[in-house]
C-alpha cells in the first residue's frame, strides 16, 4: 500500500512524490523517498512513523517547501507548493531552533514581526501564546536559560502565533524524557483542538504516534513508501490518560508488527553501509 486517502476535505495532497539525492564525489545517487501519495484532511492529526533513514523528515521538508521533490506534485489549499514555504504552513524542527540571542518573548514575536503584523496584535498574540505554553514567567529569559522541553515549547509557540493552518512537526519531542513527552503531547493536542489546524507529526515513537493521532502512516525502510495507515479512532478530546487504555497497546502493537521487518532491513542496510 502506498496510497493513503483521507476521509474528509483535502487540505494538503502529496501525489507520486519521490526524492533522489544526487551522489556526491562519484558516489551513487541515494533514493531516499517514494513514490508516496498522501492526502491530509483539513483539521486532522496524522503521524508518520518509520525506521531511521526512511525519508520521514525528507517528506516533511518537501511538504513544507523546504526542498523540492525529484518527482511528483504537492498541493496545499488547492495551490501547488514550489520552492517556497506556502503561506499558512508552520514547521517545528527536532533540533533546537530557538534564536539564542533573543528572549523567549522576542523569539515568539519573531515571525509576526517579519510578517509585518501590527505591534498591538503582535503583543496580544505573544501574550496569549506565553500563557498557553506556560512560558509567561520566562518571557524575558534566553533559550540557553531554559530546559530542552521549554525551548521546544518556545519553538512551538513561535509557530502557533503565526496561526498556521498546517502544522508540520519533525520529531519535536525527540530529545525529551518520557514524562515530558507525554505532557508536551497533551499540550500539542490542546493547541490542535483550539486552533483547528491540520497537523502532520513525524516521530519514531510508536506509542506517541498511537496516542496523539487520528491516523498513523507507517513507512517502509529506504526508499520510504507507505505500508499501512492505521486509524486510531480516538475522540478529539483525548490526552495522555489514554496510556491506561488497552486499545493504545493494541494500536502500538499493530504499528510495530508492520515496522519490525522494515526496522531490521534499515538496521542491516545501515550496518552494511558502515
Amino acid at each position, binding site marked *: 500500500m502506498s496510497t493513503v486517502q483521507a476521509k474528509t476535505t483535502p487540505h494538503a495532497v502529496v501525489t507520486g512524490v519521490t526524492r533522489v539525492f544526487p551522489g556526491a564525489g562519484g558516489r551513487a545517487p541515494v533514493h531516499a523517498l517514494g513514490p508516496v501519495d498522501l492526502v491530509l484532511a483539513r483539521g486532522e492529526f496524522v503521524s508518520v512513523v518509520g525506521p531511521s533513514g526512511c525519508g520521514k523528515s525528507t517528506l516533511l521538508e518537501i511538504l513544507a517547501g523546504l526542498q523540492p521533490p525529484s518527482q511528483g506534485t504537492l498541493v496545499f489549499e488547492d495551490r501547488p507548493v514550489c520552492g517556497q514555504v506556502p503561506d499558512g504552513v508552520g*514547521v517545528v*524542527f527536532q*533540533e533546537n531552533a530557538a534564536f539564542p540571542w533573543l528572549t523567549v518573548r522576542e523569539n515568539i514575536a519573531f515571525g509576526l514581526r517579519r510578517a509585518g503584523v501590527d505591534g498591538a496584535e503582535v503583543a496580544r498574540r505573544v501574550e496569549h501564546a506565553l500563557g498557553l505554553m506556560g512560558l509567561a514567567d520566562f518571557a524575558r529569559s534566553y*533559550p540557553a*536559560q531554559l530546559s530542552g522541553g521549554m525551548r521546544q515549547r518556545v519553538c512551538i509557540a513561535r509557530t502557533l502565533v503565526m496561526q498556521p493552518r498546517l502544522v508540520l512537526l519533525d520529531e519535536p519531542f525527540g530529545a525529551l524524557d518520557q514524562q515530558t513527552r507525554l505532557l508536551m503531547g497533551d499540550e500539542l493536542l490542546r493547541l490542535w483542538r483550539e486552533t483547528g489546524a491540520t497537523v502532520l507529526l513525524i516521530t519514531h515513537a510508536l506509542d506517541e504516534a498511537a496516542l496523539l493521532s487520528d491516523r498513523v502512516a507507517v513507512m517502509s525502510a529506504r526508499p520510504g513508501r507507505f505500508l499501512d495507515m492505521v486509524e486510531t479512532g480516538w475522540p478529539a478530546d483525548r490526552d495522555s490518560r489514554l496510556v491506561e487504555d488497552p486499545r493504545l497497546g493494541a494500536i502500538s502493537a499493530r504499528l510495530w508488527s508492520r515496522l519490525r521487518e522494515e526496522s531490521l532491513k534499515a538496521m542491516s542496510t545501515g550496518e552494511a553501509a558502515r
Partner: protein
Amino acid sequence: MKRSTRIRLWVIAGLVGGLEVLCRTEVIGRFTMIPPSEMILGLVRIVRQGDMNADIVATLGNVAVALVSAIVVGFLVGALLFVLPRVRRVIDPLLATYYAIPIFVFYPLLIVLLGLNRFPQIAIGFMLAVVAMIVNTLNGFDRVPQSLLKTARVYRMGRVRTTFLVILPCAMLYIFTGLKLAVAYSFIGVIAAEFILSGEGLGYEISFAYNNFENATMYPLIVLVIGLSALINMVLYAWEKKYLQRQTER
C-alpha cells in the same frame, strides 16, 4: 565580588608586593628594575607632564587604524570566502599556516613600499590582526545551525534579511572572539614595529629609554602599555559578558 576574582586579585597583589620587596631590598638591582610603586609614580609623572602625549596619541592612532581596517577587511574577506566555497578551499591552507610566518620579516619591504613613516607600523598591526578576524568570521558563519536557516526560510525571509537577522547575530559570538584577538594582535604589531624603526610612539619611547638606561621612564611606559591593553580587554570582556554570554549559559 566572586571568590575566584578575590583570589586572582590577591595573587596579583602578592606578585607585585613580592617584586616591590625584592626591588627595595636590592635583591633585584635598580639598574635591572625599579620598584613597582616607582613605576606607578613615574607613570603619573609622565601623564602629568604630558611629554609623551604625542607618542601615546601616535600609538593609539596607529592601533586604531590597524584594528578598524583589520576588522572591516577581515569580516568582508571572511564573508566572501564563506559564500565562495571553491575559493575558500584554495585559501584555507594558507590561513591555517599564516601564523607560522614571522610577519616582522616583511618590515623592510613595507618600508620600501610604504615609506619611512607610520604606515609600515599600521601594516604590521593590520597583517597580524586581519587573519584572526577572517578565521573567526568564517568559524562563526560555519556554526550557524541548519535549523535556524530553515526557520528563516519558513518565515520566507530573503537572503539579505536572513543574513542580518539570523546569520550575523548567530555568528556574533565567534566574530567577537576575532575582534578580541584583533585588538591584541594590532597592539602587538604596532608597538613591536615601533620598536624596530620609528621616531615616535610608545614602542619607540620604550626602546629609546632602554638603550639609554632610563629605567625610570621605560618601566612606567611598559606599565602604561599593559594598562591600556588590560583596560581595552576588560571593556570587551564586560561587553561580551553582558550581551553575548547569556546565549551560552547552559
